[in-house]
């Protein structure tokens, strides 16, 4: 059976700052919260119409999105840390606080 994906929801993962891959080197850990899952239940008339119009080439060569996205609706507070060179950095809008289908 086709892999069924869970509905769009907030997940969390404790990772080290280095693992974020932003270029910072620090052993401090952060709680990385992200949005994962499908938005099948949030499809609107808009989406159906847009999909049809792309299929009928009424809309061409345009970057349009004909299905809702599971994305953060709000972000956590900034997080700060000391890197391995003893310098402080602050990263904003790193972790999701609330998810939704948009």
């Amino acid at each position, binding site marked *: 059976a086709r892999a069924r994906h869970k509905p769009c929801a907030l997940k969390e993962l404790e990772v080290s700052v280095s693992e974020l891959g932003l270029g910072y080197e620090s*052993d401090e850990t952060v709680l990385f919260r992200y949005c994962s899952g499908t938005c099948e239940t949030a499809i609107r008339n808009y989406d159906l119409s847009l999909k049809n119009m792309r299929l009928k080439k009424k809309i061409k060569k345009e970057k349009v999105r004909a299905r809702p996205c599971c994305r953060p609706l709000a972000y956590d*507070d*900034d*997080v*700060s840390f*000391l890197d391995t060179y*003893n*310098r*402080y950095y*602050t990263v904003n809008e790193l972790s999701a606080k609330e998810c939704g289908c948009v």
Partner: protein
Amino acid sequence: HSLASGQDSHGWRTPVDCVRANELCAAESSCSSRYRTLRQCLAGRDRNTMLANKECQAALEVLQESPLYDCRCKRGMKKELQCLQIYWSIHFGLTEGEEFYEASPYEPVTSRLSDIFRLASIFSGMDPATNSKSNHCLDAAKACNLNDNCKRLRSVYISTCSKEISATEHCNRRKCHKALRQFFDRVPSEYTYRLLFCSCKDQACAERRRQTIVPSCSYEDKEKPNCLDLRNMCRTDHLCRSRLADFHTNCQVSFQSLTSCPGDNYQACLGSYAGIIGFDMTPNYIDSSIASITVSPWCSCRGSGNMEEECEKFLRDFTENPCLRNAIQAFGNGTDVNLSPKNPSQPVTLPPKTEKSPALPDDINDSNTIYDTSVITTCTSVQEHGPKLIKSKEHSLCFSETQLPTDIMPDQKTFVDQKASGS
């Protein structure tokens, strides 16, 4: 008659906070008028001339009955600053004004380090100090980042303190201090102490501990002021003055107690040390050495003129304070002195010996500790203790006559002058 105020089992007045006391007094005409009179009496006049004035004397006597007289404040209470302003409006005038140690306006701390360890292990599921594995200071930062409140307020002070304003102005120190005060006032000590007092086995950890308060902005400065100047500046601000008085009250070396801390309460000392962070008097680790823990405010005793000894004594309360050092180490090792708390209500019967000079302001610690001098009184035990250098002026020296340190007394001789006159 005495105003409606709580009374303990002794019939002594139990202190209320000064905001409440002020309200009680304001509601009572004789008290409020006397309070106004006393404030005018205290305004700038020498205490003795004030006491000689009948009206001031009468005001004082009435106020002694009011809860205003021994009201106190609580750290982090609502209207803390207002409470402190009321407290100092009375007590600043009634002390000499230049006491070396001022009594803390805060209520004595009853919680102990062991309470913090319990809470810390509940929150983070591991005993903070016994996690011998890795870098405790790094673990403390991890624990903080996993707690929303700690993470947020830590990020507020770090981003404020590390924000470059311009090529010439490194940071906004005033905002940085305010953010630091908020962090230490609003985040539970299970998190803040771990960041501030974590124990270290390597230099990287010790440097991380030193960096906790972002010293480049909150601590270091182009030049070092004189420590007495720094103290004077601090005492012009009610909050700073109160926190410094609290530090002196809870961390002042007490030779009678096992831990060198008044009432053997490490938590009270650590709490008041954290309480002066974010003020002019902000102290910090002076280096990232793991051999010794030395903290100091950013000041020196150069340029003290005739007050060098007083300046050095003030500085030693930070740099050579066995109580503070033991408290920091105790927290780092996850140990606390579990003395069964003495029953405060049981009055002292044994002839207590007065504690070491200089005189502490009164009722510093209501935990009814017996103060006595624990100085070695006989030299017969020198071998057992080994030769003792002049460690610090509070400790008695113990040398046999022939062993005086040469740098002071190359060929020491007893000075006896038979003919010296009596006066």
